[in-house]
């Protein structure tokens, strides 16, 4: 949808097309895994509405505790770098909470 909008130019288009290709491949392999490996029914593609305001709140972004250790204290490295050094997981409710903003 973003690619088709006609507002992306040049090198940005190449990068987004590359990303789009990867996401499409991910859909195919996940459909395959859910359907043929796990023997379940892949969910139908929902209808999306990308005009919703984005919510820039991602839980755990400032986290410096990893494996029960405060890595800033362990290393003396600043909290910004320590929080960047580990990505943080979102649970299902958190993911669906963000994704549902874009469901029509």
């Amino acid at each position, binding site marked *: 949808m973003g690619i088709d909008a006609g507002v992306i130019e*040049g*090198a*940005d288009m*190449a*990068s987004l*097309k*590359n*990303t789009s*290709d*990867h*996401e*499409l*491949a*991910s859909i*195919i*392999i996940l459909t*395959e*895994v859910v359907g*043929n*490996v796990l023997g379940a029914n892949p969910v139908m593609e929902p209808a999306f509405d990308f005009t919703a305001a984005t919510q820039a709140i991602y839980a755990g972004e400032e986290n410096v505790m*990893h*494996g029960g*250790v405060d*890595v800033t204290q*362990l*290393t003396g*490295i*600043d909290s910004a*770098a*320590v929080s*960047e*050094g*580990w*990505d*943080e*997981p979102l649970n299902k409710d958190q993911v669906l909470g963000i994704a549902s903003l874009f469901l029509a």
Partner: protein
Amino acid sequence: MKNDLIKPQGLVKDANRRKFLQKGSLSIAAAGLFMVGCNDDDDYMPPMKDGVMLGSADIGILNYAYALEQLEAAFYAAVIQGGYFANANAEEKQIMGDLEKHERAHKEFFKAALGSSAIADLEVDFSAIDFDDRMSVLGAAKTFEDLGVAAYNGAGKFIQDAGYLLIAGKIVSVEARHAAAIRDLLNPGSTDFAGDDLIDANGLERTFSFSEVLSALPKVA
């Protein structure tokens, strides 16, 4: 076999990468690293004389990650002492400075997590890298970051403890961000940030077995 289905085609060894690693003369002073008690024949690395024992099961995998993080941390520590960094533009200084901190944090984290089970400090020889030369530094950074991602990808399925798997997942995505950042510095605005040399037709990144990674490391020499 679900493993067969979800195994990315991209795990086929990248001949160019291996060639690069063999030609470059980074080295790890230890004669080799090896796992013990690994239950997958394909991934079993036989003991090597004077090698560093990583240990078995999750301890072995954590030491494996620790070894890779030691390598990366030592590399970036040398980068920020070098002429390239001293003369780099603000953006590249920021990136290299951040990467040095991230890798040092990862290294120290694993060392603390492993406690008395941690392997000793590895001696690394970066004499083949010209730390005054931008392309030499960025080329080596790309190699290390790409290798790190493939190594974590390959180790994940052997991690038994869910907490350790979570830690590995939290780190591998950061390593992939590093790789993307370095790749974009090398070829700005291109699709190299997530290039076809790394990502297969299934949209999956490479997965290296223990033996692929461990055998690559000494050959870095």
